[in-house]
């Protein structure tokens, strides 16, 4: 028998998980399907981790509205879901006098978008606030509502809270087609069977165009991946405490230098439009471009202290803005299309998609209500996703107490980031279980330090093997096909 759901969400990125979390508040069965081995493996895991203030999107666009509304929701969201978030503000820095008018323009745009708490500061003030900034700075826009977060934790926490409230998350489950009854969608076909649902929500990120085309919706809509390459720096050697944007260009918000909540400085991204949605490769040219951009903001940045590079693909769409008089063709799509029944269609949710995610989830709920859904709040709905201990961030005293309570927190597995066996085991058995190396890495920051997993790799594979009851040969880095090991070594007989 096919399982019957009320809401089926395609795609477990930050938007899909946030929608699952919002819908799990109400009576009804929620299913989220994700083609990868974990949630948050696409754009949600490879970005700049910034909660944008909202001065950047074009006034009047849906993107601008979602950005500003979403930004305001983050304090409560972080409080309820217990992920790392800090509203430390951000800067758009003009280098040389010729860039200053662009910063003023951004300020005006921010005001039109309703962004609170923006101030222009002088070059001298900027230099005082960030000693590493290019001394030729002529001034900056300071947006106090800008924030930084741990985007991996955000996605996982939203998904987990949905699961705690009754939603079901199926990993390694790839959407193949809609099941239709005339013009009505009644379910989805996947590699793991059919699932029936009254509503299907397309939050397939970079593949959202393919998904909507299967329903016959917006055949003219296409996602073009915009590849962004990044550097991560060793926190022991590079410490930039602020979020520093350059002035934006036609290519987007530009190559920034920013701190993260793990205290690692990161630099990036560039923006290269590509065709292949799976091409997450770094390039020599791209990394050189990022280096150049980063050095323009922070000339003292020493690339020698880079400990990793990564690539994110932003799902840039060609959705037209619906606001009369606003000409803009890369807007978000959030709609219940008329061509079919039973579809909530999202598309082109590129940056600031992370910031907008809670606002998008709320928008989806509002649309469903407008479409006649009753949406009765569950009596036992719990908005809180409890925090889990993070050894690295604790005082000596708290570590002592934690290890006394559970000695597994005393066994340090990742030497650079100080991640313990207790934390790893907790993630493996969490509401959305971390069953791959990278799933643990995203949740704990294990293996992200200067040795890049050289020390912990064998140990984590052994822990995964033990906890999941599988052979080390079956343990993967990121799902099927990414095994570590081929076979056992030769045995000496006798």
């Amino acid at each position: 028998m096919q399982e019957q759901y009320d809401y089926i969400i395609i795609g477990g990125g930050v938007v899909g998980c946030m929608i699952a979390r919002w819908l799990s508040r109400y009576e009804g069965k929620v299913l989220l399907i994700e083609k990868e081995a974990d949630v948050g493996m696409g754009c949600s895991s490879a970005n700049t981790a910034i909660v944008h203030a909202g001065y950047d999107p074009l006034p009047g666009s849906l993107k601008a509205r979602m950005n500003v509304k979403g930004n305001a929701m983050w304090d409560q969201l972080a409080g309820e879901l217990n992920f790392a978030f800090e509203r430390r503000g951000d800067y758009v820095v003009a280098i040389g006098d010729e860039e200053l008018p662009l910063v003023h323009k951004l300020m005006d745009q921010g005001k039109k978008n309703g962004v609170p708490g923006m101030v222009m500061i002088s070059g001298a003030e900027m230099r005082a606030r960030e000693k590493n900034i290019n001394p030729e700075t002529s001034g900056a826009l300071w947006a106090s509502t800008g924030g930084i977060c741990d985007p991996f934790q955000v996605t996982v926490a939203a998904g987990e809270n949905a699961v705690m409230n009754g939603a079901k998350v199926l990993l390694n489950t790839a959407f193949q087609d809609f099941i239709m009854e005339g013009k009505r969608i009644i379910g989805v076909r996947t590699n793991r069977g059919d699932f029936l649902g009254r509503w299907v929500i397309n939050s397939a990120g970079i593949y959202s165009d393919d998904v909507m085309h299967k329903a016959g919706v917006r055949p003219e809509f296409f996602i073009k991946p915009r590849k962004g390459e990044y550097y991560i720096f060793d926190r022991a050697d590079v410490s930039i405490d602020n979020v520093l944007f350059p002035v934006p260009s036609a290519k987007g918000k530009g190559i920034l230098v920013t701190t993260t909540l793990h205290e690692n400085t990161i630099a990036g991204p560039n923006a290269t439009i590509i065709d292949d949605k799976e091409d997450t490769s770094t390039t020599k040219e791209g990394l050189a471009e990022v280096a150049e951009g980063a050095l323009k903001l922070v000339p003292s940045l020493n690339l020698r202290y880079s400990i990793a590079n990564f690539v994110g693909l932003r799902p840039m769409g060609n959705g037209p803005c619906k606001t009369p008089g606003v000409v803009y063709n890369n807007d978000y799509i959030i709609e219940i299309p008329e061509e079919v029944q039973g579809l909530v269609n999202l598309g082109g949710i590129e940056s600031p998609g992370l910031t907008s995610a809670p606002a998008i989830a709320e928008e989806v709920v509002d649309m469903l209500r407008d479409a006649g859904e009753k949406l009765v709040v569950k009596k036992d709905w719990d908005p809180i996703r409890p925090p889990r201990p993070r050894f690295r961030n604790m005082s000596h005293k708290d570590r002592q107490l934690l290890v006394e309570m559970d000695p597994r927190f005393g066994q340090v597995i990742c030497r650079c980031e100080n991640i313990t066996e207790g934390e790893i085991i907790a993630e493996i058995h969490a509401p959305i279980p971390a069953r791959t190396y990278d799933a643990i890495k995203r949740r704990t920051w294990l293996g992200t330090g200067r040795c890049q997993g050289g020390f912990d790799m064998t140990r984590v594979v052994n822990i995964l093997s033990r906890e999941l009851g599988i052979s080390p040969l079956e343990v993967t880095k990121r799902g099927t096909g990414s095994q570590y090991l081929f076979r056992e070594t030769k045995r000496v007989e006798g």
Partner: protein
Amino acid sequence: MLSKQIYDVVVVGSGPGGVAAAIEAKKAGADDVLIIERDTELGGILLQCIHNGFGLELLKEDLPGPGYAEHFIKEMLSLHVEVLLNTMVMDITPQRHLFLSSKEHGYVEIEARAIVLAMGCRERTRAQIRIPGMRPNGIFTAGTAQRWVNVEGYMPGKEIVILGSGDIGMIMARRLTFEGAHVERVLEIQSYLSGLSRNLVQCLQDYNIPLQLNHTIKRIMGKNRVEAIEAVQVDEKWNFVPGTEEIIPCDTLLLSVGLIPENELSRKAGVKLDPITSGPYVDETFQTNVPGIFAAGNVVHVYDLVDWVSEAGFSAGKNAAKYAIALRNAEARYTPLVAGKNVRYVVPHKLDKSTLEKEDVRLQMRVTRPIEQPVWVEVHDGENLITRKAERYVRPGEMVTVVLKTKNYADVAKSSKLTIDINPR
């Protein structure tokens, strides 16, 4: 469980440098020597180096890594060095307090009169040499692959390309060939070999594994697992030579591109590092800029031969012991003077015992409350009364004085602490 709160010498890391330091610290007269190892066994990286070539200089023997380690571990254990396994040192302060974490012993703080840092080195990774391309599984440092094969007993690859002609890379080329893998070739960006010539002969040439100098990797291909690498020739400035690209199908890329001393703990302790070696600045006793903190072996700079690491460890251990003993003697020279019953404070706060050998010392104090009856002002060491003085009464407004006489020297010399109490007679 830990036998002490304060140790003479604490050694961080039980590789060849650490074990040698512990041995020599003990031989040089340190009482309590503790060696801390984060892995399940003593020996460090030597345990996964099952090839031979160790000990030719120091032991005049050709031993495999574990054999070399065992030789010194046995000696160390016979000297009653205390051992902590499965324990990570989380923090070291400039005052030589160490915070340790382990499943078995919990999270504890200990003190050391001297510390020997012997954390060894780590391997450079892909990001540090910035190889572009995809980020699939199957890219390992040679040392991690060595652990997979020699300690864990698993094969991390079948078709293998090695970047870098470092010793571990060449040794792993031979090891993986023994185990039935195919090592396609070793690429080296420099125009010369970076490891030892003997390894080129014994590990590559003897097994017909080609070494390509002036070659590097232009990009890595494969989504989930390495599928191929693109090799390219470079000119003397390491620019790619167009037209020399070659796509080599493989499932594994091993990196043997250099080692970096592991000094994150040293930094926490305030140890200054030389940007060229990436190790601490040391004097000829292997002492760092932080008094009482010594460093030995690959944590200081990367050695060619383990024998030299052991020698550095001997020297650091001996000097750490000297430092600890001098500190212990200085500590023993003084005894603190403690305000006991009805005493608010005593001046002086501590006493150099040797002073009492030559002259009397006057102690002055104030009481906490008036006692309007005859009292004894008593100086004792916790068990034995050393001297006492009678007063008809004591009042906070009137300073009380008692004198320690040269005749009390013998008693005071034995004490670790003197307490002054005022009791009714």
